[in-house]
C-alpha cells in the first residue's frame, strides 16, 4: 500500500515545529509496512488533490499565511470536494482560519478565504498565548498543546474539542476546533500528533482502513510519546479529573 501525504506550504507555514506532525505520520505508517510518499508543496507548485490520501497544513506568520492563501484559494473547489469525499485533512494553528468564509483583519479589511465552512475569523490586536488541555468526544485521553494566535472564531458548527484549559476558539470559550468528516482543524500549534499519540494512532489507523478495510495492524510503538503525554498531565494538570 502506498500512502501519499501532501504537506502544504512546508516553507511558509512552519512556524512552530509543524514538521513534527509529518515525521510522526511517516514513521508510524512505515512501521505498519506502508510505503509513504511525502509531497512537499508550496506556492510554486500545482496542487492535485486527487493524488493525496492525507493533507497537512500548519501555522505561519500573518504575512506568510496571506502568501499561502493567495495560492491555495485557486483550489477552493478541489479542497471542498476532497473533504466531502471523506479524505483526511489536518489543519493546525492559524491555518484553520483559511477554511472559513473570511478573515476580518484588525484594520477591518475582509480577506476572503476558502469558504469550506461558514465561520469567520476576527483578528484581535492582542496575541493569545497559552497552554491548552482539551477533550474530544472520540477519545478518552485529553489533548495537550499550545496556542499562539491573533485570531478568534466564534461560530463553528462542528467543534472538535471541549476546552478544559486554555484560550480555545476565543478567550473564555468552551469549545475549540472543527471536525467535519475527516477534516480536523484546531488552533493548537506545533507537533500535536507527537504530543497526542492517541490522535496519531487514530489517524494512522483510519487512513489505512480507508484504503484497506481488512488491514492487519501491527502493534504500535508509542511508548515515549505516551509517557511524555501522561507525565505532562500528571505533573501540571493533576487536578483535572479525566
Amino acid at each position: 500500500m502506498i500512502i501519499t501525504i501532501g504537506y502544504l506550504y512546508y516553507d511558509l507555514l512552519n512556524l512552530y515545529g509543524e514538521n513534527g506532525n509529518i515525521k510522526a505520520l511517516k514513521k508510524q505508517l512505515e512501521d505498519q509496512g506502508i510505503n509513504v510518499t511525502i509531497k512537499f508543496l508550496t506556492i510554486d507548485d500545482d496542487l492535485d488533490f486527487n493524488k493525496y490520501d492525507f493533507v497537512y497544513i500548519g501555522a505561519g506568520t500573518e504575512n506568510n499565511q496571506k502568501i499561502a492563501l493567495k495560492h491555495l484559494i485557486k483550489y477552493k473547489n478541489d479542497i471542498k470536494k476532497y473533504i466531502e469525499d471523506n479524505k483526511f485533512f489536518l489543519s493546525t494553528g492559524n491555518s484553520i482560519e483559511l477554511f472559513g468564509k473570511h478573515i476580518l483583519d484588525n484594520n477591518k479589511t475582509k480577506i476572503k478565504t476558502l469558504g469550506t465552512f461558514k465561520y469567520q475569523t476576527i483578528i484581535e490586536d492582542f496575541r493569545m498565548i497559552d497552554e491548552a488541555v482539551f477533550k474530544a468526544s472520540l477519545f478518552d485521553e485529553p489533548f495537550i498543546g499550545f496556542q499562539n494566535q491573533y485570531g478568534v472564531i466564534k461560530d463553528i458548527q462542528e467543534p472538535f474539542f471541549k476546552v478544559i484549559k486554555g484560550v480555545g476558539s476565543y478567550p473564555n470559550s468552551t469549545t475549540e476546533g472543527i471536525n467535519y468528516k475527516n477534516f480536523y482543524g484546531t488552533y493548537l500549534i506545533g507537533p500535536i500528533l507527537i504530543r497526542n499519540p492517541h490522535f496519531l494512532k487514530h489517524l494512522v489507523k483510519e487512513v489505512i482502513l480507508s484504503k484497506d478495510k481488512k488491514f492487519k495492524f501491527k502493534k504500535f510503538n508509542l511508548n515515549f510519546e505516551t509517557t511524555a503525554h501522561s507525565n505532562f498531565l500528571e505533573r501540571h494538570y493533576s487536578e483535572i479529573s479525566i
Partner: protein
Amino acid sequence: MKPLIIIGTKIMEKLLNMIGRGSVLPGEIALKLNKNIMSYFKLPKITIFITGTTGKTSISGILTSMYKSNGYKVANNSKGSNLEWGVLTCLIANSNPFGKIKTDVLVLEVDERYVKKVINHIKPNYFIINNLSRDQLARNGHYDIVWDDINNQITDDIHLILNSDDPLVTKFGLNHKGKITYYGLSKTKHSTKKSDLNNLDLVYCPKCNKRLTFNYFHYGNIGNYKCGACDFDRPKPDFEAQLIDDYSFKIDNEIIKMNNQALYNVYNLAASYATALITGLSKGGTINALNNLSLKIKRLDSFQVDNKECILLLSKNETPVSYNQSLDYISKQKKDKTVVIGFNNISGRYDLKDLSWLWDINFEQLNDESINKIICVGNFSYDIATRLKYANIDEKKIIIYEDSAQLLEAIKKHGKKFVYCVLYFDMEKVFKRLLKEA
C-alpha cells in the same frame, strides 16, 4: 525631583555594589518614582544600542573593551540586565545628578522586545542589529512581531549597523533614509547549499514575496541570498570578513584572531570592527584591541567525572538557531562520545510549557555512529527521547533519567571518554551542584 531620584538611586547602586549585590533595583525604583525618568538623561556623542536574537552580550562586551583600550571612558549594562530596568540602572550609575552621562561612550545591549520601551526615552546614534530568528515564541509570538516592534522605533537620524547576511535584518534597511553600514562574512569552506535548519524564517522576498535564492548558507537563515524577481539581495558589506582558517579572519586587509571557531564569533567581531571604525577609532587601535581582548570569548567549560571529560554546552531552550549550533559542534567532533541533553524547565522567564521548538532543531545530526548513547535528563526527558526517536536514532541508544539528581550516575554508567552535555541553565546548576557534592 529628578536629580533627587538620581542621587538617591545612585547611592543605593553604590551600596548594593559595595556589598557585592549588583542588581537592577535602582532602575526599578527610579522608574516607579517617575516613569519618564529615562528621558532625563543626556547621552554622550557615541551612544550605541545592540539588539538581535544572539550575540548582544558578546558584541557589547567586545565594544566596551575596545573603546576602553583606546582610552575612552565607557558605560555598559552587560553585567546587569538588558531590559529597561537594567538600562536605567546603568544610566544612573554613570551619570551626575543632572542626568549627564559622564562617559565618552555608552554601549547598551537591549532585549529585542524592550527596544520600544527604551528608544521612546533615549535614542542611540548607532544601532547594531546582529540577527533575528525564531526565539522564545511563547513570549514573542513570532519573529515578524519582534521585527515590527524594532522597526517602529527606527528613525532616519539613527545610523544602522546591520548584518548583511541575515535577510530579516537587511529588511530593516529597505525603508531607512538614514545611514546604514553593513558587515558580513564571505563564503567559507563550511558554507552549504542547504541550511542546517529545516524551518527558516525568511525564504520569500520581503519586497515581492517571490522565493529567494540562496547561493550558500553559513548557518540558520544566514548566508548569501537574492531575489530572482526584484532587486532585493544581500547588500554588499562595507566590512566583509573572509575566513582564513578556523581561528582567524581578514577584514579591511587586517587579520583578526579568534579563540573560538564558531562562525557567529566572526559576526560579533565584524560588527564591533565596523562600529569602531565608523565612530572614529583608528584602524590600528581597533585591530590591536580586538586581538588583545581583555574579555576572552567564552571557551567551553569542561569537567571530570571519573575519567571522563564532560564538555558543557550551555544551550538556551526555545532558541533553535543557537541550540542547533551546540548539536552541530558535537557532530563535528569525530571521536567516540556520549551526549547528554537536559532541562527541568523550558523557560527561566515564564511558566508556559511550549515544546514545539524541539522540532525546529535538527536533532537528526545526532544520528551518528560515533555516539554510543544519548542520555535524556529531567522533567521533559520523554519529550526529548521522542524527538530523538523521530530523528531516527535507535531507541536502544536513548537512555532516560527523569530525576536530574541521577545525572552523574548516568554519566558514570553510560559515558564514553568524552561526554558532551547540552544543558539548559537550570540543569547546569544541578550538574555543578552534584559535582561539588561528589
